[in-house]
């Protein structure tokens, strides 16, 4: 079953005519993902790569194609508006790839999401991949910017704030012949739509997910919350890694959310929370897959 998206999911790309959005829409099409529509205001009526219709609004794209899920590749000043357009059009899922959205914009978006049916993943995230059955996992659903070919269809769920660390974990699994159910990048910003815990709950309920790799980093307390829930509720083995043990306090380590401030959000506290919850902690990022496989 996987979570969030399946190979049948009809995907819309907001910002499909931009260079970044277009490149990744193309890669998703090659992977076999059902990219059924694009949206760029002012370019309605055009066709992307001779097969994907472009609309002026998300509402038009929904009405014409029945798309339920959007990937947002819109530049930062316009991204909050693009997300809310997807919410207004009644999408089930909006995945925002855009990096560099002002925090206050996301605070407003998060408030607007209260009570809506739409789930937001991201922003500043690599997206979601549910691997397919074809060669190099093609035929799956790839939303975002992750390299599709590193995946393999299987039963491990991966959730992470970081893109390249997700790829690292996925590649370690694939190289050991172990596939993934769904891989979710929730993004490195301080305000995001979906937390580690939200994804862990979905993996716990998904019969096709048999084990979970959870990758966190310094800043905030989302990892601790997820760990507390896992301790009391999770039926599946979980392996974890926390990046940023060596990060100096008060410095933002690339991701807007990756900062230890006021003594909070340290790697030590998170690793301790993982241990207390019975999560197997990888000492180094090279061991993420091995640590999980040992307890599978």
């Amino acid at each position, binding site marked *: 079953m996987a979570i969030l998206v399946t190979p049948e999911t009809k995907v819309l790309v907001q910002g499909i005519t931009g260079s970044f959005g277009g490149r990744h829409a193309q890669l998703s099409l090659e992977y076999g993902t059902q990219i059924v529509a694009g949206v760029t205001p002012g370019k309605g009526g055009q066709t992307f790569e001779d097969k994907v219709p472009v609309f002026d609004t998300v509402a038009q794209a929904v009405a014409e194609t029945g798309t339920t899920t959007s990937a947002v590749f819109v530049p930062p000043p316009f991204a909050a508006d693009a997300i809310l357009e997807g919410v207004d059009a009644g999408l089930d899922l909006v995945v925002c790839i855009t990096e560099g959205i002002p*925090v*206050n914009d996301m605070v407003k978006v998060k408030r607007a999401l209260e009570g809506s049916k739409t789930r937001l993943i991201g922003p500043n995230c690599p997206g979601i991949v549910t691997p397919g059955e074809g060669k190099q996992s093609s035929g799956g659903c790839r939303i975002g910017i992750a390299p599709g070919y590193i995946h393999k269809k299987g039963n491990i769920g991966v959730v992470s704030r970081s893109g390249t660390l997700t790829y*690292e974990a996925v590649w370690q699994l694939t190289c050991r012949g172990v596939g993934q159910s769904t891989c979710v990048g929730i993004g490195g910003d301080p305000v995001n739509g979906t937390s580690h815990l939200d994804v862990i709950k979905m993996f716990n309920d998904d019969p096709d997910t048999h084990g979970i790799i959870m990758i966190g980093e310094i800043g905030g307390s989302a990892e601790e919350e997820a760990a507390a829930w896992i301790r009391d509720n999770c039926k599946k083995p979980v392996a974890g890694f926390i990046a940023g043990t060596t990060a100096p306090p008060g410095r933002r380590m690339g991701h807007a959310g990756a900062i230890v401030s006021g003594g909070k959000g340290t790697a030590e506290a998170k690793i301790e929370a993982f241990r207390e919850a019975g999560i197997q902690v990888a*000492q180094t*990022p090279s061991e993420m897959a091995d640590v999980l496989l040992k307890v599978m």
Partner: protein
Amino acid sequence: MNIHEYQAKELLARNGVNVPSGKACKSIEEAQTAAQALFDAGQSMLVIKSQIHAGGRGKGTFKSGFQGGVHLCKSVDETVETAKAMLGEVLVTKQTGPEGREVKTLLIASAEKIVKELYLAVLLDRNTSKPIVMASTEGGMDIEEVAEKSPEKIVKETIDPAMGMMPYQARKIAAALNLPSSLIGQATKLLMGVYKTFWSCDASMVEINPLCIVENVDETQGIAAVDAKISLDDNALYRHKDILEMRDLAEEAPLEIEAGKFDLNYIKLDGNIACLVNGAGLAMATMDIIKHYGGDPANFLDVGGGASREQVTAAFKIILSDPNVKGILVNIFGGIMQCDVIAEGVVSAAKETNLSIPLVVRLEGNNVEIGKKILNESGLELISGDSMADAAKKIVAVV
């Protein structure tokens, strides 16, 4: 981005927050004029404050031996003498590190008669994704210490971003700070102004420590932001041209400014093994694994998802301008990027910079075999790492 105290007070004053009258001065002449104006206006005491982006100024020491980055002065002459001892001198505080910071600007302001010191801050609460106002009766001290020793003395009020701060919330905070009824009106105005500053400037934090009950010349009481610190959301600076002009490059590390020009995210650390990585999470994890195997990372460096040849070359130059660096670890997961393109970038960067220290390269992903071949046939004395662990062990071993 951080700004100076005098700039923070300017933003607060624009939003109706009462701050002590004062002026930022960059020369002794300006200091003299500012002091004269304040004494002429009836002030009997001035405060002269070093403007650097670091806390602990009052207890700091100048490298000249002059004690204290903040002083009270009773006359124009005393102000001028004190300013001479501070301006252009290097101030060392517990937050600046031993190298200290040169004081290029002094804030000369009226010294308020302080009745009581309080604490006030507005910041993002990551748990609720909403702004939160924190206030405490324990002002003038480190709030983290208060949070640890007497958390009950900190009051918190969550603000609904759809509404903004409501006056009743400001009154509630004022009451929780045990302010006398006569000050509730003023305090409400100040609190609303501080929140407005936070929101309208896209600040990540506004901190007023201390917020003070002060005694006016006519012996009535007032409330004023005696110190102020504002940090801003870098992602939102594009819509605040006026605030962007407040950026003081002298307060930032030169290598970090240089890195920014190439869209590189670089943070200098104290170790001797430089690392060059794509992606923030992987970059942090690379630092961690160097440390895990007994080495000491010299920097955090994220070249982003693209890692073009120009960027890799710029990154090498920045890394090598740190004299502590004794070896480099390149760790790239070439997902969308082709490893051969990255390998070519690394080779050309190493040649262009006449690299003479050990270089370990770990490539993974698309076209990795061609990439490794390019590295091996480059004529460079580089070491290839198979996994992150293998690469980290190898660089630690040779440095």
